[in-house]
């Protein structure tokens, strides 16, 4: 059954269909014991379906229609099994015990009503269910082991934190708990499904380093699912590139990154911002020669939020931030979650008021002006938000979405507005035929184009892009960034780009402002900050960009 005894997993000719629609087409790959393999692909490439098939946890109408998934015999327990045909009781003894899963979203994968410790203990007890009476541990022993697991997963003071609830943990800490749960059954194969996509880069690096050391120490095989080619290259021995339910290419990180054979892989490598940034030694083409007067001046901006339940208690989200943005350039504000970068953007947009200091657009501030002057300012600044699913009213047609600002400002009549919408759709390279569709009928990338078209409707000079590409797949992200750069050339737009992703910065920005806990840590041109970072924090951020190892 198993072609090579050294293999822990052999998947061959696997077909999966959802309600009759084939989703995976003859997938085949194998993993050796102790090997770390990455499956890389965009959303919809079938990578999550592949794991679903291996764990036999396909959602809804998903069925395995052809092929086999052979799991090698365990070192201590369990024989060779074909997971494609195994019965449910057999699968129950395999999941968590021989194959562990670290799921994607640490925010939703822990039960919010249950303490952390018992959730780990549950996994521990469940994994010993098959051992019968002699495998049963008493409660004190379960707790001792669960604490040990949490400690091992990198949770400091695990004894005390055992009794805390998930909301008392940060995203990174929750991910560590999930790792502890996955390791509770001492599986020989660990599947990590985008374990760090929801986390900041520096946290991501800590978690992955830790996961790697745990896996190495135990000799566990790791199947790592990610959309980030750079991350896969850094962390694994072999990369499987998937697209549209097929395996496109398999190779070592070096082969895939430096010598991709397939057209799709080439595109992916070219688009992957982290790799592109590392490979491409030149930063963005030199900044516009004639530096003009600044369009946006942020001066000594401070924002304090009152703490709930504490009289007079405040937290300083933005602390004395100053920078300026010149007309026709792109400035990126970089920072991790909680760095205050979004608050800065909201103050500039006039959605929040500053506690002190000011954000001036062409010399005036949205938070202090009123009436006609304020309306004129509004027309100069428009936002593009992160989530293209939330930022477009789902009840509106695309045409109404794009012409809403025109209607609010009473620009033109019906006919001229339609002309303008058509023109805007052309500008963002969307077919005019989408005009009567609803946002939910479009893909994420298309929606973000609609959001850009709508932001451009009033012919603003400054676009505030709040994580405008973070929710998108790399290839789509690349397209949107190209579109933004193109629009900047044609319309002379100025961008303030809020992002957590340094590699994106390198692709599009002229100047960078690095923020941390409300402070500006460092600012300067992209070239200065990337090649000669002064602050330690900037160095740390730069070091955490995945794929940097292939810079040479």
């Amino acid at each position, binding site marked *: 059954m198993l072609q090579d005894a050294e293999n822990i997993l052999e998947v061959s000719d696997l077909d999966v269909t959802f309600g009759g629609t084939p989703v995976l087409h003859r997938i085949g790959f194998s993993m050796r014991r102790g090997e770390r393999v990455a499956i890389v692909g965009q959303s919809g490439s079938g990578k999550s379906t592949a794991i679903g098939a291996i764990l036999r946890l396909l959602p809804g109408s998903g069925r395995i229609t052809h092929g086999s998934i052979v799991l090698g015999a365990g070192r201590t327990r369990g024989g060779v099994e074909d997971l494609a045909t195994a019965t449910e009781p057999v699968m129950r003894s395999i999941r968590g015990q021989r194959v562990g899963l670290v799921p994607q979203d640490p925010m939703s994968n822990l039960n919010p009503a249950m303490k952390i410790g018992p959730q780990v203990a549950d996994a521990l007890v469940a994994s010993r269910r098959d051992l019968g009476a002699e495998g049963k541990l008493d409660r004190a022993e379960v707790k001792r082991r669960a604490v040990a697991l949490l400690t091992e997963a990198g949770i400091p003071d695990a004894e005390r934190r055992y009794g805390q609830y998930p909301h008392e943990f940060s995203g990174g800490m929750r991910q560590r708990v999930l790792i502890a749960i996955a390791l509770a059954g001492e599986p020989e194969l660990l599947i990590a499904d985008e374990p760090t996509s929801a986390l900041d880069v520096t946290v991501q690096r800590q978690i992955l380093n830790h996961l790697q050391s745990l896996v190495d120490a135990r000799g566990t095989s790791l199947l790592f699912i990610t959309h980030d080619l750079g991350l896969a290259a850094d962390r694994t021995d072999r990369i499987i590139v998937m697209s549209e339910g097929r395996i496109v290419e398999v190779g070592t990180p070096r082969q895939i990154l430096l010598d991709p054979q397939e057209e799709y892989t080439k595109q992916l490598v070219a688009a992957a911002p982290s790799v592109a940034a590392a490979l491409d030694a030149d930063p963005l083409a030199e900044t516009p020669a004639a530096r003009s007067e600044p369009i946006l001046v942020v001066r000594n901006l401070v924002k304090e939020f009152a703490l709930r339940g504490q009289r007079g208690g405040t937290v300083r989200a933005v602390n004395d931030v100053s920078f300026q943005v010149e007309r026709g350039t792109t400035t990126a504000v970089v920072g991790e979650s909680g760095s205050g970068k979004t608050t800065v953007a909201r103050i500039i947009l006039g959605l929040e008021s500053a506690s002190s200091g000011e954000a001036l657009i062409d010399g005036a501030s949205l938070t202090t002006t009123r009436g006609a002057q304020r309306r004129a300012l509004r027309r100069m600044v428009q936002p593009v938000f*992160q*989530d293209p699913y939330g930022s477009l009213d*789902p*009840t509106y047609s695309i045409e109404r979405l794009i012409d809403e*600002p025109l209607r*609010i400002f009473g620009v033109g009549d019906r006919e001229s507005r*339609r002309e303008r919408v058509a023109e805007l759709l052309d500008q963002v390279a969307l077919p*005019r035929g989408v005009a009567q569709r609803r946002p939910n009928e479009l893909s994420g990338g298309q929606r973000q184009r609609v959001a850009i078209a709508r932001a451009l409707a009033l012919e603003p000079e400054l676009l505030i892009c709040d994580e405008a590409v973070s929710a998108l797949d790399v290839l789509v992200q690349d397209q949107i960034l190209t579109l933004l750069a193109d629009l900047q050339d044609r319309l002379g737009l100025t961008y303030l780009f809020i992002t957590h992703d340094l590699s994106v910065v390198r692709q599009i920005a002229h100047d960078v402002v690095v923020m941390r806990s409300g402070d500006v840590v460092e600012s300067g041109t992209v070239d200065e900050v990337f090649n000669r970072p002064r602050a330690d924090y900037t160095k740390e951020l730069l070091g955490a960009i995945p794929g940097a190892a292939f810079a040479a």
Partner: protein
Amino acid sequence: MAVETLPPKAGGAGLGSGRGRILSSLRHNPLGITGGIMLVAVVLAGLLAPLLAPYSPSEVHFDTPFQRPLTEGFPLGTDDLGRDILSRLLFGIQTSLQVGVLSVLLAVVIGTPLGLLAGYSRGFDAVISRLTDVTLAFPFLIIAVGLAAISGPSLGNAAIALGIAQIPTMIRVVRGETLRIKESDFVLGARTMDASPTWIMLRHVLPNATSAIIVQATVIMPVAVIGEALLSFLGLGIQPPTPSLGIMLSDAQQYIFRAPSAAIFPGIAIALICLAFNLFGDALRDAFDPTNTTRK
């Protein structure tokens, strides 16, 4: 609809038109069609009662009480006074629907704007929510008794009492939806476009709250029909001999073992009305909900 770039047409900019989307969505929903047909049937039965009914609803036939259904001359039989059940049923549907529709309209027309205001502005919220609490503290029977005492028991007063009783829940539903929707990115986006609060409430919050309002309305409708029965039973609603489904039900329970059909038919009618409104309301909600268009 074509995905490809359409050549720009003179004047129209080639953007097409968005009309007919809700209708086409309704057409593709078999349950919705069923509900719609039932609703049309029930409404027609009520409207055309004077034409369809073989007798006047209050015409008594003392020589033929308690006739079984399918008796010659009385397709659904007669009640204790020998009144034709079919005729009473048709007129009863008419009155019950009137009460139901009136009270739902009242709840929606008053509850929705108040809910929007309460959800959108904190100042209004404090006032409106307290008023809601006070209203909830009064059982609707007390309101109905009060109204009947002031202006006499009638169909209109019963509808008003039932409607008022439903306003607080309507306010809460709309307020909750508003609280949720006003935090969304698209409302934030509208604010950066200098949209006024009125614009945001009417053009963003209300359309997105529509499905919740429809669902709540379809919940209120049967409650009102049954509530009317209760009020009429207590003598606070429709006055005999005007038939309503509620009065028929409460009359029939005195002789339910002798002539069960006198209770069964109005019961079935109430169930059908509720079912029709629920099915059609569900379909309407799906049609209005843009995130549902992929399901066909």
